[in-house]
C-alpha cells in the first residue's frame, strides 16, 4: 500500500451533511471530523467535542459524505503503454470520480508477474499518484494461463490479489492448481470468467442485434459455463474466488447457488453493464465494445437487481484506456474496453435516482465491499480509519464532455450522457486531492 502524501494534513470538518457509511449501517445527517489524516468521528454526534482548532470547516448542507470509493478493476498503461494512461493520470481521473483507492490490473507490458514489478508499481504510485494505489499480480506467468506465479513472494511485495486481468485461464487444471496453492496464502483469485473457446470470433452479445449488424456473437454461455467451472473448482479446493465481472442474468443464479453452498465467492459487475445494453452499440460504435460484451436489457436489469440483492457484491469501473490506434477501427477489429473512473459514481447514481438501488447499497458495492474483500483499510468512516472520503452533491446535473475528461484516453461510452451527481471534493488521508466548484 502507498500513502501518497505522508506529511500531516490540517484538520477538516464537514458539518450538517448526510453521512452514508455502510460499514456501520449509518445513513444520517451529521458531521465528519478528520484529524491527522484519520477519521476522528463521523455521525450525528461527531461535533459533540466541537471542531478541532484550526480546522477547515465545510458546510455539508445538501451534500453526502461517503467513504472514498475503492475501484478494484482498473487497467493502466504503466509500464508499457504510458501514452494511454499512467498511474498518475489514472489517479487524477480517480480523484475526479471520488475514488480514493484504485487497484490496478497486471495486464501491462511487461505483465506484473514478478515481485520487483509489484514493487515498481507501488513506488511509481507513491511518487506520482494522488490516490491510493494497490496492485493485483498476475495469476500465471506472463498471463499465459500455464504456470502459476509466486503467490507468496508477490503477496509479500504487496500484491492484494491474483488475476490474469482481461484474460481467462482456459485450463481447468491450471485454475484448480492456482486456487489450491493460493489457499495456503489466503490469497484471493480474481478471474475474468469467459470461455475463450466459446467466445471464438465473437465481438458482441450473440443474438438478433449482432446478426443484424453482421457481427459475430459471443454467447452468454461463454460466461456461465466458465463461472460454473470455477465455482466447482472453488468447492473442490476451498479457495477464495472473485468473478471480476459478470454480465448475464443466469450468472446470478449460478452465484446465488454457490453462495448458498457456503463457498468463499464474490462477484463484480462494471458500471457500464448496469447502465448500458447491446443496443447502445448502434452504428458500430467501438467505445461500446467491451469484454464481457454489453448484453440485453433483460440482462442489464438482472445485474441491477443482483447488486441490490447483494448476490453481485461489488461494482467496478473496469477502466480500460484505449486510444485512436486501438479503437478507430471497424468494430470487429477494435480493442475492447472503456474508461470509467470519472463516471463510476455518476453511473451508479443513475440507478439510485431511478429508485433501483439504495444509496447505501451503492456505496457499499463501490467502497466497503471491495475494501473488505481485498482486506484493505478503506471503505469506512469508522473512527480511526484513514480519512479517505468523497463529498458528493448527488443532485447536481452535468453532461459528460470529451474536453472535460481528465483521463489520458478519451474512450468513454458516456460522451454526451446526462448524469446527476457530482463529486465536489475528494479527500485522501485527510488531504483534499480534488475539488469541484459547483453552483
Amino acid at each position, binding site marked *: 500500500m502507498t500513502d501518497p502524501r505522508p506529511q500531516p494534513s490540517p484538520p477538516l470538518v464537514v458539518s450538517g451533511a448526510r453521512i452514508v457509511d455502510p460499514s456501520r449501517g449509518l445513513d444520517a445527517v451529521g458531521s465528519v471530523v478528520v484529524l491527522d489524516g484519520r477519521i476522528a468521528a463521523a455521525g450525528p454526534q461527531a461535533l459533540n467535542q466541537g471542531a478541532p482548532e484550526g480546522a477547515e470547516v465545510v458546510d455539508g448542507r445538501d451534500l453526502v459524505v461517503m467513504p472514498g470509493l475503492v475501484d478494484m478493476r482498473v487497467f493502466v498503461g504503466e509500464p508499457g503503454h504510458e501514452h494511454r494512461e499512467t498511474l498518475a493520470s489514472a489517479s487524477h481521473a480517480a480523484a475526479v470520480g471520488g475514488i480514493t483507492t484504485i487497484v490496478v490490473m497486471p495486464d501491462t507490458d511487461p505483465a506484473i508477474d514478478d515481485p520487483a514489478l509489484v514493487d515498481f508499481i507501488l513506488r511509481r504510485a507513491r511518487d506520482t499518484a494522488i490516490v491510493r494505489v494497490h496492485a493485483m499480480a498476475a495469476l500465471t506467468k506472463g498471463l499465459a494461463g500455464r504456470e502459476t506465479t509466486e503467490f507468496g513472494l508477490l503477496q509479500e511485495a504487496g500484491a492484494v490479489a491474483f488475476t490474469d486481468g482481461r484474460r481467462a485461464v482456459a485450463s481447468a487444471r491450471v485454475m484448480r492448481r492456482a486456487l489450491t496453492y493460493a489457499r495456503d496464502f489466503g490469497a484471493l483469485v480474481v478471474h475474468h470468467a469467459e470461455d475463450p473457446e466459446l467466445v471464438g470470433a465473437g465481438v458482441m452479445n450473440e443474438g438478433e442485434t449482432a446478426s443484424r449488424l*453482421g457481427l459475430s456473437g459471443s*454467447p452468454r454461455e461463454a460466461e456461465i459455463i466458465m463461472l460454473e467451472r470455477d465455482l466447482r473448482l472453488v468447492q473442490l479446493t476451498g479457495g477464495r474466488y472473485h468473478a471480476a465481472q459478470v454480465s448475464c442474468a443466469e450468472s446470478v443464479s449460478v452465484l446465488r447457488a454457490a453462495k448458498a453452498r457456503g463457498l468463499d465467492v464474490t462477484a463484480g459487475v462494471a458500471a457500464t453493464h448496469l447502465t448500458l445494453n447491446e443496443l447502445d452499440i448502434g452504428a*458500430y460504435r467501438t467505445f461500446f465494445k467491451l469484454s464481457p460484451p454489453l448484453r440485453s436489457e433483460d440482462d442489464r436489469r438482472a445485474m441491477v437487481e443482483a447488486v441490490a440483492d447483494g448476490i453481485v457484491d461489488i461494482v467496478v469501473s473496469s477502466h480500460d484506456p484505449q486510444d485512436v490506434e486501438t479503437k*478507430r*477501427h*471497424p468494430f*470487429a477489429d477494435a480493442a475492447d474496453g472503456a474508461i470509467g473512473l470519472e463516471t463510476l459514481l455518476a453511473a451508479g447514481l443513475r440507478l439510485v435516482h431511478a429508485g433501483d438501488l439504495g444509496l447505501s447499497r451503492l456505496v457499499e458495492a463501490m467502497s466497503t465491499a471491495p475494501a473488505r474483500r481485498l482486506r484493505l483499510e478503506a471503505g469506512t468512516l469508522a473512527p480511526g480509519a484513514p480519512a479517505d472520503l468523497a463529498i458528493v452533491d448527488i443532485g447536481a446535473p452535468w453532461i459528460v464532455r470529451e474536453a472535460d475528461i481528465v483521463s489520458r484516453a478519451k474512450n468513454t461510452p458516456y460522451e454526451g450522457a446526462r448524469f446527476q451527481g457530482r463529486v465536489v471534493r475528494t479527500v485522501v488521508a485527510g488531504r483534499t486531492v480534488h475539488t469541484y466548484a459547483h453552483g
Partner: protein
Amino acid sequence: MIAPSKPAGTAFPHRHLLGIEGLSRIEIEALLDLSESAIALSRQVEKKRAVLRGRTQINLFFEASTRTQSSFELAGKRLGADVMNMSVNSSSVKKGETLIDTAQTLNAMRPDILVVRHHAAGAVALLARQVGCSVVNAGDGAHEHPTQALLDALTIRRNKGDITGLVVAICGDILHSRVARSNILLLAALGAEVRVVAPSTLLPAGIDRMGVTVFRSMREGLAGADIVMMLRLQRERMDGSFVPSVREYFHYFGLDEEKLAYAKPDALVMHPGPMNRGVEITPAVADGPRSLIGEQVEMGVAVRMAVLEALAGNLPNA
C-alpha cells in the same frame, strides 16, 4: 444507415448507399426503374452516357472480387466517369489502420464516388464518415451488400413481374452472408415471403426475428417457392467447422434437379456467384433453363449504373 443530404422529393435523397436498411420501398423501386433504362443502354452499340463526365470514381477493394469490381468499373465507365481500381491486400496491412489512413489519403485526391468492399461489418460506414464524397457499399463483412440485393430484385422483377407475394427461399450459408442480409431486408420491403433454408450451424442467432421463416430441410423450405436463391459456401467452412464435409452438405443442401422439383414448377434459380459447382449447386441446375445466374451478372452492371446515377444527382455541383 443512409445519410440524408437532400430534402425529400428527390427520387433518391441520399448521399451514400451503405445498405438496404433505411431505404423505403419507393426509393428501391425508383432505383429498379432507373436500372431498366441502363439495361437498354447497355444493349446498344453506343453504351456511353455523360452523367458522370468529369467525375472520379475509385473502387477501393480490401477484399478481392473480380465480379463486383469489374461490374462497378464498367458501370462507372458507361456513365462517363474516370474509374480507378485500388485493391488493398488486407493481409499485408495492419487491420483497419489502413482503412482510415487510406480513406483520408484518397479523400485528399478529391474523388466524387468511392466504391468500397471490406472484410469487416460496418467498415464502409466508418470510412464514409471520413470522406467528403459519396460512398457505395460493395460488401462489408457479413453485414450488407446492397447492390447485390438490388440486382437480384431487378432480375426477379423482370422474370416474375411483381415481387409482392412471391415466395423466395434463400439457401445455404446465411450466417456469413451479407447477400442474405441485404436480400432479406429488400425482399421483405417489396412484400415477398422470405424463407431461409440452412443447417442450424449456418444460421445466425435471432434470424427468426428478422422477418423470415426458418427451415432446416430443402424439401420443406423449397415447397411452393417461386425463387430459389443459393449462397456460396466457402471451402474453409466445410471441413468440420460448420458442416462436417462437402458430401454431407451437398447431400442435404446442394441444389440438384431432385431438390429443385420441391419448388413450384416454374421456380427459377439464382446464385450471387462465384459458384462452387458440386457443393451448393449442380452444373445441370446452374447452367439449366431455369437458371437466372447469367442474367444476374448483366443486371449487376445495370443496377450499379442506376446507383451511380442516383448518387451523381446528389453530388455537389451536380
